[in-house]
């Protein structure tokens, strides 16, 4: 048994109370959601905090998936498991189900949350790549009220986000557009391992079947999960084809900044960035064309 350093613990009963507690304790405190990122670090004593504020009682307030006209809203405390199981969500954004099938294992998925995933801001984090792909925006609440930031602004660097001390991520919003399709793919050394590389793609077709817009998000190939605007620009207006996807793949490979580590060489990761971009674009287009979203 790995044991963390001593800390104080409180359970918030409302979002306001959580915000108040966070405001009081500042950077000596941390929210705990699923705990699957925070607790391992505390047990290894890589992270030590004086106060933990448990928000798991806020599931009523922060655990939801709302599919509305033009937008999908997902509460920060929604569990991986709920994202995986939601047929409604998969109907709009199949990328979620693709991703959730390969994130961690059932035990982690039963507890880990969307908010915890984004706020952990691990460069290998899969849901961040999904959110980037879908052009999500994050709703953050603090003592002064609520603000909304885009995914591009949310991640400030590895393990750093726009959420300031005393603030809490409450919700993530995803714009829904017509004739869209999305997909996710990950290469891992073993089921439940973090990605060697993963890629998400979302594509929207015009009436003639051309690519009206497309977005690609990659994980584990740089300091943050990043969208690649050059790919979007290249794909817009194109007739979908393997040749076009391959061009997008090349851009992905050269736009990312992978590092060599235990999971693989930087060169291999670049290769995967291309390969998985091509594969997910192909699936996303096929889904959009079939009207599967």
């Amino acid at each position, binding site marked *: 048994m790995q044991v963390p350093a*001593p800390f104080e613990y409180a359970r918030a009963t409302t979002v306001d109370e959580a915000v108040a507690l966070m405001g009081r304790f500042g950077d000596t405190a941390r929210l705990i959601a699923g705990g699957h990122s925070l607790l391992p670090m505390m047990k*290894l004593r890589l992270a030590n905090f004086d106060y933990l504020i448990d928000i798991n009682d806020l599931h009523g307030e922060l655990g939801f998936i709302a599919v509305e006209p033009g937008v999908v809203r997902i509460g920060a405390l929604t569990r991986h498991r709920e994202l995986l199981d939601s047929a409604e969500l998969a109907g709009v954004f199949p990328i979620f189900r693709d991703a959730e099938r390969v994130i961690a294992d059932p035990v982690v998925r039963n507890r880990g949350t969307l908010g915890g995933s984004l706020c952990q801001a691990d460069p290998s984090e899969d849901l961040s790549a999904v959110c980037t792909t879908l052009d999500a925006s994050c709703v953050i609440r603090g003592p002064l009220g609520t603000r909304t930031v885009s995914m591009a602004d949310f991640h400030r660097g590895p393990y750093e986000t726009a959420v300031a001390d005393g603030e809490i991520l409450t919700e993530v919003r995803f714009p829904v557009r017509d004739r869209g399709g999305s997909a996710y793919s990950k290469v891992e050394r073993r089921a439940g391992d973090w990605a060697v590389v993963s890629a998400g793609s979302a594509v929207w077709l015009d009436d003639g079947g051309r690519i009206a817009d497309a977005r690609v998000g990659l994980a584990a190939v740089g300091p943050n999960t990043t969208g690649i605007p050059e790919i979007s620009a290249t794909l817009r207006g194109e007739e979908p084809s393997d040749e076009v996807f391959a061009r997008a793949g090349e851009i992905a490979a050269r736009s990312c900044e992978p590092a060599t580590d235990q*999971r*693989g*060489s930087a060169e*291999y990761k670049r290769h995967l960035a291309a390969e*998985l971009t091509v594969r997910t674009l192909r699936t996303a287009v096929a889904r959009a064309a079939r009207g599967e979203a």
Partner: protein
Amino acid sequence: MTDTRQRSFEDNDQKPMGFGRMLRKEDPRFVRGRGRYTDDVQLPGMLHLAILRSPFAHARIVSVDTSAAAALPEVKAVITGADLAGLGLAWMPTLSGDVQAVLATDKVRFQGQEVAFVVATDRYAARDALELIDVEYDVLDPVIDVRQALAEGAPLIRDDLDGKTDNHCFDWETGDADATAAVFAKADVVVSQDLVYPRVHPAPMETCGSVADFDPVEGRLKLWSTTQAPHAHRTLYAMVAGIPEHKIQVISPDLGGGFGNKVPIYPGYVCSIVGSIVTGKPVKWMEDRSENLISTGFARDYIMRGEIAATRDGKILAIRTNVLADHGAFNGTAAPVKYPAGFFGVFTGSYDIEAAYCSMTAVYTNKAPGGVAYACSFRITEAVYLVERIVDCLAYELDMDPAALRLKNFIQPDQFPYMSKTGWEYDSGDYEPTMRLAMELAGYDELRKEQAEKRTRGELMGIGISFFTEAVGAGPRKHMDILGLGMADGCELRVHPTGKAVVRLSVQTQGQGHETTFAQIIAEEIGIAPADIDVVHGDTDNTPFGLGTYGSRSTPVSGAAAALVARKVRDKARLIASSMLEVSVADLEWEKGSFHVKGDPGTAVTIQDIAMRAHGAGDLPDGLEGGLEAQICYNPSNLTYPHGAYICVVDVDPGTAVVKVRRFIAVDDCGTRINPMIIEGQVHGGLTDGVGMALMEMISFDEDGNCLGASLMDYLIPTALEVPDWETGFTVTPSPHHPIGAKGVGESATVGSPPAIVNAVVDALKPYGVRHADMPLTPSRVWDAMRGTAQPPI
């Protein structure tokens, strides 16, 4: 003789009176959470111990200041290497006759080495206090790359050893160098290949730990500890700690896996004893996961060059190898004294060849000590990998089918007992039927056709074969000892008046199902139902002396002891039966569970009747004592040599280089099969372990000597999702010298499977001209192999 893949519960529970499928007697307590492990031991007043470990791979200790830690009210003792040195306990012997620091005094020699310990009222306080110990280190250059260990000017690791000026650990050779060179010189074809068997960890689910309870009045030590060899440990404690052996009781309760990891004596065990002596209270030490992974016995870490000589038509003539072995900072290999490289000498495999030679150099590096079983089967894992990989390299160069090449070179049935060119006497074997069965189960020819067709479409499919012969069941004691303790095993059997029995073993199960298997062996011999036989093990006060469980030795050694002790009891029962039935012994016939008068099956006494008579008031034959019990110490006359044929089918994604193990066919021959269900379980587990080693496991280090596999997020072990539905089969070639003909099976699959998987992946990559790729075959490494840019994994 194939095993169907799905078996019903009933089919696995045939309630045999002896050998056959039966559910495991120990499982009800495990599946209901009623197992009792070392960490479950709670004693009144028990304190908790935590160990401070070195953050550096190589550093001189300048000073250790424990005052702040000692000042915490929860802290009862803080002990450093200097304190232990004062007691003469700072160093202890390793299983290979080297010494290892219990707590570092002069230098730390690997990251994670024990530096000091704290005893406190609870585990949290003990751990918190570690943060308050201030150690000043003078950091030294480490030796991490084993190939640089003997380089000019390499930092000296073992300056504690008198006169030591380099990092050389030992040299070892076997076989005939000149004869082998002569054969190589005349051979048509010589193939040479460099291979790395990376350092891996046994990673048992339960980490290591102990609870020491020293009674200062009686001078008696009771030690619960995670050990696969309780008796050997007790003797070593007596020798190290100076507590008389009869005053030490070692109890190894339920073990959550061992795989060789629980063979060595770790500093933590000794610290808990010292902690209890110092505080006068029971002291518990339980490692956490990171401590287990970074500091306890690893396996493998052999860098090998394999060479094979053959005729153009595929007759193998000779095998030669040179090995560089990384033994870490202290030589803690668990191996018999005369076998510093374990049983690596069986690297000639299952083939009848003219000559063989191995030379090995072992070195010290700034890494954790160890070198353990399962995990190693006394280094047979490395030997089998070498020979089975190099034979495939030969097949590649000869453009010959690897199955055909093996079939052409097998030792033939009439050659057994077969003396290998490195001096190992293979007891029995009949290889071709085993190989043919595996090929039949796999549909080998069809698979090759499918592969040819797929290759035309650019799809990558590989078929890999490995055929192994193991040498398990150490001793005999005259050749094999650990620190002077001969490798033999005791066994005691006592039949109670009502005909129930208790058997006491010197070996200790870690999941192998001894409580079932040994009851079945006794049942087979004396006809008492397995359910009526209690199996006692793991407690030195209540079991006879013996060397413990590792290297697949329990069934070959203790299994033989159990059969023979039961026969002794049966012999006595026969005398009693003759007086009960008033006929001469010669007129009695034994039918499992009873004696009857020859030709008159109606006139019979059961073993239960006899047991009551043995303890009763009635007359016993003249000169016969009461009671029905016996004791034995079994010293095996030879090792047993199980074999098997494994075939693996993989698909490799050409775009991502991800390997999927599609099928795995394992045909094992472990001689007489006691409980086929347990055998299959052992095989399934070992195959899974093989997938781990072949595809993902490796303890690696950065250049500063930081261990990069310190958690199970970093050190990957396989899950159910990485393994296929195992397809198993068997042949039976009994051991001629074992009383029931059984050979060991615990490590067969761990030994046999990695080369089958690697051979399959390499076969899949044949269109890329790949002849070899080193483990672990992660997607990145496979991709490198496809592009011809692979580097050895060190």
